[in-house]
Structure formats: C-alpha cells, structure tokens
C-alpha cells in the first residue's frame, strides 16, 4: 500500500499533474528551449536535478524554516542549487551551458520548483518530497522532449541535431519560432485533455476568493460560483430577449 502511494507520487508528476501540460507551469523555458531536442533535454535534466535537491533540502528544513520567511529561504536554497548546476555545466559541459544561456539561470524563478516547494515539500517528509521532485522533474523533462521533438523534426528537419534527409523538403520552419512553439504547446495541451477525458478529465482546482481585490464586489466565495451565476444570468438574458422578439413579431 505504501509502495503504491510512493509510486503514485511519482506518476502523478509525470501524467496526472504534469507540470507543463496539466498545471501549465514553466511556460517560459518550455517555449524557449524546445527548439532543439538537446537543449530541451538539458533544460529538463537541469531543472529535475534542482527540483529534487531543493525538495529534499526544503523538506528536511521544513520544521526549522519559520513560516514568515519561508519564501526567501526557498529562493536562496533553489538559487544555490541553480548556481551549483551552472558552475558544473560551465566547467564540464560548456556547449550545453552556452546553449541554455540565460534560461539556465532563470530556473531560480521557475514556478514549478518554487510551486512544489510551497505545495508539497514543506508539508511532506524528505522521501516523499524527493519522489515528488523526481516525478515532476521527469514530467517536465518528458513534456519538453516531446514538444522539442515535434518542433525540431517538423520545423527543422532534424532530430537532436542529426539531419533527416527527406524532411528537408517538407519542414515547416515556423515551428522553430515563437508562434510555432505556442501552436505545438496548445495542440499538446488539447491532446492531453482529450486523452484524460474518459477518466473524468483534468480536474482544475478552484481557488477561493481570498486575496482577490474584487472579492467584496461579487460577494461570492469562489470564482467558479461567480462563473456559474454569470452563465445562468446570461442564459436568462438570452431567453428574455427571445421572448421579447417573439412578442414584437406578434404585435407587428
């Protein structure tokens, strides 16, 4: 039972709670580094290492870190791992370091890492946090490599820098550019929604109205409630308009 739970933690990050395709987190590095499979794989791997390490440390220190300064503490810990990864890449894999450029340093502000620290690591033990980091990291890595494969093969006619001869005549260069990135990203999200539809679809979390500056205006407890009411109001207005039109016709 415990083993199943551990496995579920890992699988949830890869499929059910995939950070890129379900949670829509880490969009910036996803779009920026998926022009080539090598850079996407490198970014995924670097982020996974930072995610696992930061999750472990944050989980281990969860009882020591005061609630009021937890975010600065998390940022310092994440930044430390990112800097270490940067130094190691620059020293031993300089070509990957040059390829990732500024996006390597931007892992510090990657919302997947900070998000998992805040949502999971600070509430769970070290082992579970490490497994969550592995699952989320692999989920991020898989999504990046999948997207990069589509963009590089169809957009550049190559895979991991190896030219595919027959693809040279049918490649779609726009896929390697920003608009192509958004297009592929959108299609993959749609595909993911379709695949999970039979299992009840992707459950979007509804958030409370705490912290919403307009909360006092709508007087509701959640945005979903507002949306439902708005939809009802719209339906009523449409019905009223139809009745009014019908009455006008009769008068004429």
């Amino acid at each position, binding site marked *: 039972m415990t083993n199943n739970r551990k496995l579920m933690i890992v699988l949830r990050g890869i499929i059910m709670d995939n950070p890129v395709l379900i949670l829509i987190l880490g969009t910036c590095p996803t779009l920026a580094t998926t022009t080539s499979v090598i850079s996407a794989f490198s970014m995924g791997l670097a982020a996974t290492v930072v995610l696992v390490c930061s999750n472990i440390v944050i989980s281990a*220190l969860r009882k*020591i*870190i*005061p609630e*009021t*300064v937890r975010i*600065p*503490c998390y940022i*310092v*810990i994440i*930044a*430390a791992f990112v*800097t*270490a990864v940067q*130094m*190691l890449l*620059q*020293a*031993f894999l*300089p070509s990957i370091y040059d390829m990732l450029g500024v996006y390597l340093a931007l892992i510090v502000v990657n919302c997947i890492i900070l998000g998992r620290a805040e949502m999971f690591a600070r509430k769970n033990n070290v082992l579970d946090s490490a497994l969550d980091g592995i699952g989320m990291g692999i989920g991020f890595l898989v999504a990046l490599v999948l997207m990069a494969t589509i963009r590089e093969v169809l957009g550049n006619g190559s895979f991991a820098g190896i030219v595919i001869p027959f693809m040279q005549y049918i490649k779609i260069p726009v896929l390697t550019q920003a608009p192509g990135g958004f297009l592929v990203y959108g299609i993959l999200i749609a595909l993911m929604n379709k695949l999970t539809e039979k299992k009840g679809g992707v459950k979007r979390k509804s958030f409370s109205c705490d912290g919403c500056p307009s909360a006092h205006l709508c007087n509701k407890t959640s945005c979903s409630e507002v949306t439902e009411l708005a939809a009802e109001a719209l339906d009523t207005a449409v019905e009223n308009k139809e009745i009014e039109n019908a009455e006008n016709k009769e008068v004429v």
Partner: protein
Amino acid sequence: MKKSNLMPSLVLGCICLVVALLLSVVNMFTAPVIEAANSAAANAALTEVLPNGSNFEEIEITADYPAVVTKGYKADGGYVFQMSVVGYKPGLVIMCGVDTEGKIAGVKHIQSSETYGMEAELNGAYVGDTLDSVELILATGATSGSKSSKAYFDAIKAALQSAVIAAGGSVDVRTPEQILQDNCNAALGTEGKTFTRWFATEALSGIDAVYESDSGYAFVIGEIFIGVNLSGEIVTQDVSLDNTSTVTDAYTLLSGSSLTELTTLPEGIDSKVEKVYVTASGNYVFEVKASGYKHATNMEFAGIDEGYFFIKVSIGADGKIIDVLTTSHSESSGFGDACAKDEYYEQYRGKGDADVTVTVPSPDFHGDLIADGTQGVGIIASSTFTTTGYQKAVKSAFAAFELITNEGGNE
C-alpha cells in the same frame, strides 16, 4: 516577542551563510576548470593560425607596427597578429600566424562582409610565404583592381612586417603613397606637405614625373627626387650636373606654361568636350565629360544628364598625348575607380589618335565584356563601361584637336 522577531532573520541568515559556503566549495573545484576552458577557447583561434604555437602572450602594438595591426600575440612557435583592413566593404578582420622562420603559418578571417567564398580561397593561398616572396594573389574572378584581394595582401604583408618588428628587427612599414610623399618632402626640405601629381601640359624631357605642393615642386628622374622651390632654385643637395640642367630646363618650361582658354570652338566638336585651352608652346588641353558605368547604366536610360566622370587630356603639337587626368568620378569602387590611378594614365601617355581605339563601341550587360588580358590602350578589365567612356572621351579630345589644328581655333 523579541525571539519571534529575531528567529526568522537568524534562520534566513544561517541558510544564506551555509549556501555561500557550499557554493564557494563548488566554485573552488569548478573555477580552475572554467578558466582553463576559457583560455583554451581563446587560444583555439590562435592555434588555428599558428599550429605549432603554445603559451600565447599578448604583446603591445606600438606606433612602429603597420597601422592595420590591431592585436599581436607572442608564442613559443612564432607570432599571431590581427589586422583590420578595408576590402570591398569595411570591417575585414584577419588573423595571421607567422612562424619563427618568418613564414605564414596560417590565415583566418575573424569578420568579413566580402564576396562569399573569397576568404576561404585566400586564407590558404599565402601559407608558406615570406616577406620577400609574398605577392598579391587575386581571388577567383577578381580583377587587378579587386579591393578584397588587395586588402588581404595588405593584411598578410603587415603581419609579416610585424613579425620582424616584434623580433626586434626594423622594416619600412610605409605605404607606397607615404613613401612618395616622404621622398617629395625630403627633396624639398619640407615636412608634412601634401604633394599631388602635376598634370603635364608640357612634355618635359628627361623627367618621369612632377609633384607639386604649395612650397614647390619635386621632379622625379628614375628613383631620384629633386626639389625646386617656388623661386625656381634647386634645394636638394648632391644633385649631379646632368640632372641639374634637366630639372632647370623642365622648371622653365613648367613655370612658363600658361593656359589660355579658347572661347570660340570650330563647329563639329563633340559636345562632351567642355573646355579647350592652349599653351604658349602650342599644346592643347581638353576638358571632357565621359559617360562611364554610373551614367551609362543608371542615368542615360532615365534621360538624366548626370553621373559623368570628368577628365583632362593634354595633347602636344605633334598630336601625341602628353598627359591625362581624371578630375572627378563616381565609378565603382574596386573596379572602374582604376581610371583615377597613375598606372592607368601611363597607358595613354605618348599615344596618338591611331593608337587609341574604342574596344567595345556599344557595351551592354549581356556580352562584349572586357576580360583579363584584353590588349589595347586604356583598358580596365571587367570595367567595360568605364573603359569605353574613357576611350571615347580621349577620342573626342583627339577629334577636337584635329578640328582645331586643321581649321584654326580662335583665342
């Protein structure tokens, strides 16, 4: 209360301290590797042009080095110099390695906007050349006026000269133009004066060229420069008696050569002949506008009366050209602009009407282009329109000369 305020800061401070310590440990291991990698990357370009080089050290480039040299490195196997020259376009940066024997070990272009592929061809062409053996090499399809090939040659020569200077030797790094100016100044005992070639309106016997400035003249006989001030006195020391009399006679002729414009010209003179002058000794000077590349290919079709280049032709009483000069032009850089160089004028000097023929009477873009090796007076290879314009302008001058001398022009 105090404890609760202090703890968060303390914990955050401790975390920062531990993180800083751990990062310093990582840095301790990675910094030497990163430094070595950076150094290797920087040396990779240097090693490429000097394969046997090691322990590269940058050397100071002083004023003794050719002006085009921007950087220099000393290595165990020789020297590497970086030159910035102007080819067909500015910004041609070339790196060149010179081995300990003074031979070119390798050439690489760092930055270039030249014709595609030209650099790759020329990079390997000079390997093995020394300062004594190096000669201009033209890239495929380039003409003798090719600025790219010339720029490459200048850069290579500068690297070879720099290697001699860096090794403690001395070498004359002046350009031919600077040498000419220095020789003229030395002959006249002046400093920093600018000399321009005197457009000869008189045939000066025994004189190869005359350069003038606001301080006087420099007469050239072979390789000897003799200065004459504005009072007509020879100021150069150690001049042989033969040369003295030759220069004195030439100066008398030169200073007495006044031009009088012919106000009325006989009918039938080509409208491109704008002005005609006659000298006291009966020589004629014609100012002619010529239709070169710019006018013939861009302006003429649109009916615009612009884009000409202007030349002066002096013809002696014997019907031979004394001198020609391009006074202004907008011909193509690296091609047609050869029409404003002394070696081009030399083709016309001493030639009569029969010697000059128009090689391509009606040039067009589809054929009849003048190629390298075409024989004739006034030819600039690959510049058919400029060549034709110049030849036609000179022929117009000869035609005007014939009309004036046969019918008699009025002063």
